């Protein structure tokens, strides 16, 4: 018990002194998670709306595949992309492995099915009258999609936040594709894993507290936005 308290006290001291390692890991974590979420949103929301509103053959199979992809383990994504990005791999010439960009690519692959599936559900959840009203008022395809996005903004926002939450807390991809290089590709989660394994428990706890605080802040922000979106 006394040991645990000591570690915690040390962790708080580290936080209080704004340790450079903590800050650099946090900045990278936020950076790659934000970028990959933005990319996954840019791709996933339009796909989700198109599939959600479309009536075509194979829609159910597509939806099923999408849901199966939600269960994709991060380690597997890491492994597949590692083989593709390593110097002898298919995309080896891009020289992405062990760079922050590699983490972004991996997190994008991780977030895309989730954002798409939730956006699809959001689009299907929008009252069918929205589409019909927009159409009869003369809206073209783009304006119809925009209107659906606006009317279901709460649910679409939830899709984005869920995507961010998923990538911000993952370890496997960051570890395998980023390589946990100090000051370069070390994120909050990979740092926790490393420092704890090394025995620097206070730093691990400090990073864990940061991780939790950011996750909480994002969710609070989301709740606030959602409340404003659906008065």
């Amino acid at each position, binding site marked *: 018990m006394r040991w645990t308290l000591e570690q915690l006290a040390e962790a708080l001291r580290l936080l209080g002194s704004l340790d450079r390692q903590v800050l650099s890991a946090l900045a990278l974590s936020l950076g790659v998670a934000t970028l990959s979420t933005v990319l996954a949103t840019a791709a996933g929301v339009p796909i989700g709306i198109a599939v959600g509103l479309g009536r075509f053959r194979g829609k159910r199979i597509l939806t099923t595949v999408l849901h199966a992809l939600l269960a994709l383990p991060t380690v597997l994504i890491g492994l597949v992309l590692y083989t593709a990005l390593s110097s002898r791999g298919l995309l080896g010439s891009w020289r992405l492995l062990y760079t922050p960009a590699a983490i972004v690519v991996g997190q994008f692959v991780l977030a895309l099915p989730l954002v798409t599936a939730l956006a699809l559900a959001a689009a299907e959840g929008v*009252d069918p*009258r*929205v589409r*019909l*009203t*927009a*159409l*009869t*008022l*003369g*809206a*073209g395809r783009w*304006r119809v999609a925009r*209107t659906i996005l*606006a*009317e279901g903004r709460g649910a679409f926002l939830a899709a984005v936040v869920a995507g961010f939450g998923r990538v911000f807390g993952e370890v496997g991809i960051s570890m395998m594709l980023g390589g946990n290089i100090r000051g370069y590709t070390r994120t909050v989660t990979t740092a926790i894993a490393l420092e704890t394994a090394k025995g620097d428990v206070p730093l691990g706890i400090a990073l864990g507290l940061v991780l939790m605080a950011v996750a909480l802040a994002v969710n609070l922000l989301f709740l606030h936005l959602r409340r404003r979106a*659906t*008065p």
Partner: protein
Amino acid sequence: MTNPAVEVRGLTKDYGPRRVLDVDRFTVEAGSISAVVGPNGSGKTTLLGILATLEPPTSGEVLLWGEPVGRSRIADRRLRRRVLMVHERPWMFHTTVLENVAYGLAARGVGRREAQRRAAEALERVGLAHAAGWFAPALSAGEARRTALARALAVEPDLALLDEPLADIDAQHRAGVERILRELPARGTTVLLTTHRLETAYRLADRCASLIGGSLRDTLPDNHFSGTIAESDGEPVMAIAPGCRLHLATPLRGPAHVVIDPRTVILSREPAHSSARNSFAGRIAALAAEGDRVRVTVDVGMPASPRGVPASPRGVPIVALITDWSFREMNLQLGEPVSAVFKTVALEVYGGKPP
């Protein structure tokens, strides 16, 4: 019948195994107000949705101003810009009332300032100028409907398809909305509206059709009589056939429509000696089973003329809907003489004017 805005041929619509619409022929003249009368669930909304090109028919052809719908996406889009449907429970976008009304204009590329000016004008017409800045989804049902009407007026469509335009409109605004609808043809908008109230149809429409169970008839429902309410011995009557006068209970006079609910018509073997003021002798012209009811058509008003020749080959049909049970008990036969009897208060009178 020279310039139809809408022409429908052999139109059907199935939802799964259920056929919800089966319309052989239907036209709407450009510059007219037409009404489709039918009970809830009779397929009125589906019909409007198909005409608005929002929903494809299962089979059949729809022509708008002579141009077939569903030929190409681009052509449909162009047609859709000329047609506007207002739903029975219109959706209000989650923004202000003014933005809602301006939506159609923005979709047509009208500049923001001009769109807002025209939207404000349309709101003024429906008496909602004061609500321009309100949050549209918070409107009452009647206000939402008037906003939806303004949303349609703003874009001045060539064809307005209005689903139950007067439902939910409170008495205070009813006359105003009716006036707006009546003025639409003069502003270049053909109107097709649906209603479950005959009264609305008669008051507003140049032409009425009835939609029952998905099938459209260019005629009105059973037992619909048009004529002139006159006075006879101080009592209002309407002649529907030679020697056949309906006794009415109404202060109204002049051209009017009368509808008798077939369920209120009693059949009697003998001329009735009852409190019912209306009793017409005739012959059974048709029998049809409808579930556990029987639809009995009695031709009345064809008394032998002095020379023994019927005044007309067929009289005026009065339809009675009776239970299977009483049909069997009375043992009614085709061609048999019976009397159709109904109470004066069972007659619904539309149109007419106070004397």
